[in-house]
């Protein structure tokens, strides 16, 4: 008899404890709560680009055609080196483990979509050994090294911790001056 009572008590405790835990779980993980949090997260993500974070390249929403992994891509008209898009990076960001050089040179390329000239910042990604994929050598409006600030023959790993060259990105700074 004592044994039955103990089992009954145990079941009762287990029932009560399971019920409390289930209700607690339901309170904290309701479907409405989940949908609410998902909505807040999606809204937050939508507003993320508006936050005052550092964005070095201003014109990333312009119309473009072509393959960013090809040397013929319009932004690469004066790029000499390796395309970061083939090495795990994008047109504006370095591959993981490489550091973007703040010091760079700026050229001008014509966008075939709107036939306008844009200022292109050719930033080298540094700190890793040279990426051997997608080498590219274009020289439109690039100048010899006696104009170092206009030359793509210079390794632009200045202001970075390590000076070894990995690849190059091509960010759009804005529309070029009308008389270029």
């Amino acid at each position, binding site marked *: 008899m004592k044994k039955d009572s103990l089992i009954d008590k145990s079941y009762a405790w287990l029932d009560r404890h399971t019920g409390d835990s289930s209700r607690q779980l339901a309170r904290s993980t309701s479907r409405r709560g989940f949908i609410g949090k998902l909505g807040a997260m999606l809204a937050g993500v939508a507003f993320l680009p508006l936050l005052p974070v550092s964005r070095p390249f201003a014109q990333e929403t312009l119309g473009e055609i072509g393959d960013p992994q090809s040397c013929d891509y319009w932004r690469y008209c004066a790029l000499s080196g390796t395309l970061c898009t083939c090495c795990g990076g994008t047109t504006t960001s370095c591959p993981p483990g490489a550091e973007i050089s703040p010091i760079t040179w700026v050229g001008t390329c014509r966008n075939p979509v709107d036939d306008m000239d844009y200022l292109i910042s050719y930033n080298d990604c540094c700190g890793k050994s040279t990426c051997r994929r997608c080498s590219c050598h274009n020289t439109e409006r690039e100048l010899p090294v006696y104009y170092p600030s206009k030359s793509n023959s210079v390794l632009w790993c200045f202001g970075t911790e390590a000076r070894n060259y990995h690849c190059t990105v091509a960010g759009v700074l*804005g529309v070029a001056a009308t008389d270029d």
Partner: protein
Amino acid sequence: MLVITAFSARADAEKNYLLHCSGCHLPNGIGDPPNTPTLRDTIGKIVATPEGRDYIIRVPGSSQTPMSDQQLADVLNWMLTEFNSETLPKNFEPLSAQEVSSSRGQILADPLKYRARFWPDN
């Protein structure tokens, strides 16, 4: 019409700054000291003297840039008003193409030594 022309010259000066100067001095002019000096709240102080006006034209980063005298004058004036509004002398007269032309031809063999005479802190 004059207003439109002035606005256009200022817009082109900003674009020429981005094309010819921002690679080293960065788009907001802060530079990357000690590799590249900042242009913010520094060059506004030194144009108070004739030597300072002369210097910012003759420094190799200015004088050797492939821009016309007028374009260089516009870019320098843009940098002075855009990045140095707090330190620019109240009676500042914008640099002219003629002033750029006469200073630019005199090669500055040792910019640091020349600069130390009137700008000892930098």
